[in-house]
């Protein structure tokens, strides 16, 4: 079973202060820590589990700058066979349809049974690239998958719906699956794997190498435009309790027990 797994490097902004930069269309990311997107990490693990069960190879695909190489090497260390990084500043990263076109160009024409992506990137939250990619590749897809049972020419997947219900669907291979978090337990890269990963092939390609006309995936031809970013005013009615940690705890306990909240 030959698998492509698409990964993205994203900032962890869960506890970071986010500020809009001078362009008004980006954020100051100088103080962010970056790593593989959470759902993509689960997609990498799922690719490794499928390879271990069914044989074949796993190729990692990423659109990004050299900063992404550490993350890509980690996926190789976990058992990926080779990687392609598409590094071209002309790619309009805002537009999921254009991004899908870029990733598709790296996969098209190669033999594959499955393409796995994360179901959502934590930075832009699009939830769109994987499904658009399937359409570009002309293969079936299933989004937000929480369980994969792969056969030889079919795959059965459990899509996680609202309210904890799963929808079970079967697709002919090849197919694209977008992976939901929690589907497996992502492994840590073994030390030996990390050493081996340094020797594995990581091709860095430009749009021209992929036969993609840069204007087709650039901002000028995008059908959508990001006008500006701004920090939303937090409409909080919350009474924020001040003081030292233990003082805050005491005040809150009193509010809970004596304030009629129970």
């Amino acid at each position, binding site marked *: 079973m030959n698998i492509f797994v698409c990964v993205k490097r994203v900032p962890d*902004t*869960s*506890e970071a*202060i*986010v500020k809009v930069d001078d362009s008004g269309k980006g954020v100051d990311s100088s103080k962010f820590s970056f790593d593989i997107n959470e759902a993509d990490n689960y997609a990498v693990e799922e690719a490794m589990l499928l390879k271990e069960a069914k044989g074949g190879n796993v190729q990692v695909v990423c659109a990004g700058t050299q900063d992404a190489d550490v993350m890509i090497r980690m996926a190789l260390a976990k058992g990926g066979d080779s990687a392609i990084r598409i590094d071209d500043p002309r790619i309009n990263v805002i537009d999921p*349809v254009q991004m899908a076109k870029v990733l598709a160009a790296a996969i098209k024409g190669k033999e594959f049974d499955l393409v796995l992506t994360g179901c959502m990137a*934590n*930075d*832009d*939250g699009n*939830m*769109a690239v*994987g*499904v658009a990619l*399937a*359409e570009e590749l002309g293969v079936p*897809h*299933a*989004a*937000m998958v929480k369980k994969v049972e792969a056969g030889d020419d079919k795959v*059965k997947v459990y*899509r996680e*719906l*609202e*309210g*904890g*219900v*799963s*929808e*079970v*669907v*079967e*697709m*002919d291979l090849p197919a694209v699956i977008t992976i939901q*978090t*929690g589907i497996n337990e992502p492994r840590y890269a073994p030390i030996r794997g990390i050493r081996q990963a340094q020797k594995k092939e990581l091709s860095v390609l430009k749009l021209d190498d992929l036969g993609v006309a840069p204007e087709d995936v650039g901002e000028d031809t995008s*059908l*959508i*435009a*990001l*006008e500006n*970013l701004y*920090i*939303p005013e*937090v409409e909080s009615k*919350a009474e*924020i*309790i001040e003081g030292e940690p*233990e003082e*805050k*705890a*005491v005040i*809150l*306990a*009193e*509010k*809970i*027990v*004596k304030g009629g*909240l129970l």
Partner: protein
Amino acid sequence: MGNIYVLAEHRQGELREVTLEMLTKAAAVAGQTGGEVVALLLGSAVDSYAEKLAEYSDRVIYVDDPLFAEYNSEKYQKVLAAILPEYKPELMMIAHTTQGVDLAPALAVELKLPFIPDVIDINVEGGKLKPLRQYYQGKVNANFSFKGEPPYLITFREASLEIGEATKKGSIEKIESPLKEDIAYRRFLEYVEAEVGDVDITQSEILVAVGRGIKEDKNMPLVEELAAALKADLCGSRASIDAGWLGHDRQVGTSGKTVKPKLYIAIGISGAFQHLAGMKGAKAIIAINKDPDAPIFTEADFGIVDDLFKVLPKLTEKIKELKG
């Protein structure tokens, strides 16, 4: 401006609320731009849905065919790809749900539609639609616009607004299915219901909710002790379920349960919109998180911005003492 179309979402015999939310938003936008609000429904034996939709739209167009007994992205895509070029709406709204995100991006590629996902609001400026989005899990807002020609396509986030009043009496038109035979690259097999646990958190009066901030399984006793002191049940955000700290039946949010307890104490939960949608109906909400910008504080009544590991032990101790 042209008409605004809303794709009705339904599952397992129920029209989903997000459909009426979209129709509410569509009516507000159409009030500024002109044009009709049109509900588009694909299903099997769905006359009653069509009637319900007519209360929120100027026109209902529906396909009633056993081929649409269950949602299937490929069949939906085929039908929309036939209908949109013919009916030429200005804007097509699809829910940003597990159905919508499984459908809209492929449709956008096939028809080369200007497409913006996960829209939370639609502003109108100078007669132009300006969809509003969020980046970085709610920390940044992003104003978007469309280029090129309509139809424009968006997916619209669930629970972004209150459903309006049913004031319309739209016309209802049943059309013949553009899909003449089944297509079978992807086949629906079955639904598997959520597992049932020992506690039904939708019935709990007090909930202590755990998020990523608790960091490790070995820290769980801190919240377990707080829950015990309050006679509360434990639940959690997606992160705590993914990490295996709690079972799936304890997940609060769009992919888990919607809860409405008297008191909800969110510990180390940043408050992704999927989580907020599941708990904002709680009567009182307390949030403890070290990030002052965490979206959870927008829903909270009381908040502590601090290291939860420094707050929790004392909080539990003091509650025990006060409760005697």
